[in-house]
């Protein structure tokens, strides 16, 4: 049985576009002779939809789009599995479930709701969803398929680890005679996670002695970056097909012959985290409806890295660096920032904060009295830089990327409303601000050689 792994970048709430992407991918999979096209968890809505699922209109239109997906793939010989938010038929508990649909011949032939709802770290699914009350295997192309949604298959491991849940959906499906496991996911990236997942799921395939198809969402949604990295393993737990990381992909695997496409990418974690930040930055800017960004360039390493990420994410023509010298800035601040901008091919402009700083001090000094100069005056300078960036942002409709690193943020070496919470906004255009990618300084030092070439 040939299966297409449809690793797509869903935009949260863009139901029609997300479904159109799935229709196009299913048509292509049909031409390639796939019996089944598998798309990620909540592929219709994008993950995580958060409190959008409390809106009746959101759930109703999700259902309408799922039916459109069924209708527009009805004539194809490729069946579809995808995630969606489903209205619960139970009169008790939460009103919606996190569900997977099997669509074929214009009908929803089967539905499996998510059993294990993670509520830790970045997940908050008990807030929104009712858990499945039962699990069933489903026959597809003469094979008995166990269908799990993300967390459902994370609780199946060898002894020694503490199980998070008393239920193990994988074991339950195996008892029902599942021959293939299909897992749809929205599993966010963190450093080292790709290998951890592969180890875990290849272990499931090996111990259970059945092939496994694992399909993940790709793309940035607010703070989260989904890396994709979908794959399939055979019954021995060996990887037989794999999709790229940090990009949409459509790969094929034949679980009967154990052969498939191999699109492995990013063997180095340093390259992976850089491309993760590029993807997360690009998607945040574009999914918020922006094209242009502004970055305060100090001539230091943090803003240089953010500028490099932005240039790769958005194209250098969409990035502007702003030098904002103050009374204590060294000469090399401006010369280094200018050289960086030239190297990246981004625009560079200068807006001094010197005279504004003097004016602010003149207004405040009578109130400060004879209290000696301290961190207060330092903060005024960084806030004036924030003010400058926000003013340019509003005037030009460009989003501000902030440049604080994680170590600074950890110890409070930043100024509220400047480095932590920069806001770039244009009320009518519906502007957005962004907390910049926060990285430990050691990661920045590791990343910079990669970008200097």
């Amino acid at each position: 049985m040939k299966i297409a792994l449809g690793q797509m970048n869903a935009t949260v709430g863009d139901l029609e576009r997300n479904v159109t992407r799935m229709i196009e991918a299913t048509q292509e999979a049909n031409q390639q002779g796939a019996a089944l096209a598998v798309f990620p968890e909540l592929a219709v809505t994008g993950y995580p939809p958060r409190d959008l699922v409390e809106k009746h209109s959101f759930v109703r239109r999700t259902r309408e789009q799922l039916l459109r997906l069924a209708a527009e793939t009805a004539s194809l010989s490729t069946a579809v599995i995808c995630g969606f938010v489903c209205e619960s038929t139970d009169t008790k508990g939460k009103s919606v479930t996190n569900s997977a649909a099997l669509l074929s011949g214009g009908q929803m032939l089967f539905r499996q709701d998510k059993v294990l709802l993670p509520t830790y770290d970045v997940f908050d699914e008990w807030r929104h969803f009712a858990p499945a009350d039962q699990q069933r295997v489903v026959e597809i192309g003469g094979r008995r398929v166990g269908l799990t949604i993300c967390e459902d298959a994370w609780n199946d491991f060898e002894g020694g680890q503490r199980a998070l849940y008393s239920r193990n959906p994988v074991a339950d499906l195996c008892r029902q005679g599942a021959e293939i496991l299909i897992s749809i996911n929205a599993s966010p990236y963190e450093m080292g996670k790709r290998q951890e997942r592969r180890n875990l799921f290849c272990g499931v395939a090996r111990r259970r002695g059945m092939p496994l198809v694992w399909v993940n969402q790709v793309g940035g949604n607010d703070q989260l970056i989904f890396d994709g990295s979908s794959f399939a393993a055979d019954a021995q737990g060996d990887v037989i097909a794999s999709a790229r990381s940090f990009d949409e992909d459509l790969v094929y695997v034949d679980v009967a012959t154990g052969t498939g496409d191999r699109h492995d990418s990013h063997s180095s974690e340093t390259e992976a985290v850089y491309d993760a930040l590029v993807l997360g930055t690009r998607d945040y800017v574009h999914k918020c409806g922006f094209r242009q960004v502004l970055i305060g360039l100090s001539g230091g390493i943090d803003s240089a890295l953010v500028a490099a990420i932005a240039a790769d994410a958005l194209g250098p023509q969409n990035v502007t660096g702003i030098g904002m010298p103050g009374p204590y800035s060294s000469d090399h601040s401006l010369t280094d920032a200018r050289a960086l901008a030239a190297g990246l091919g981004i625009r560079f402009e200068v807006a001094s904060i010197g005279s504004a700083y003097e004016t602010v001090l003149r207004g405040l000094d009578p109130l400060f009295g004879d209290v000696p100069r301290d961190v207060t005056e330092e903060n005024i300078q960084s806030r004036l830089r924030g003010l400058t960036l926000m003013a340019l942002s509003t005037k030009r409709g460009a989003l501000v990327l902030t440049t604080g690193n994680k170590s600074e943020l950890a110890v409070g070496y930043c100024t509220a409303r400047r480095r932590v919470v920069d806001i770039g906004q244009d009320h009518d255009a519906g502007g957005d601000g962004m907390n910049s990618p926060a990285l430990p300084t050691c990661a920045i030092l590791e990343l910079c050689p990669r970008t200097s070439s």
Partner: protein
Amino acid sequence: MPENIFVKPPSAELRPDQKDTDSLPPYEVLDPILRGYIEEVRSPAEIAEAQGVPEELVRDIIRKVDLSEYKRQQAAPGLKVTTKAFGMGRRFPIAQRFRE
């Protein structure tokens, strides 16, 4: 409190003769729309009918609410006294395209 604080029209005083009502309906109209959308999770049509205001106005206000999510996520923590407090009580994505 001086009586004038109660009777003068709200203004940010950032332009000559600026009033809040230049860009927003008066609070007596605005607040029931916000309550319907944020606290009661009602649709634009339901709110327009219940409040006797044009649906177009309701949609415009809702659009402003949706597009301002990024500001609420960067705001200082606020004290909760209503059923849907911004911050912990109402959690929406920023980069999302769903429109009523």
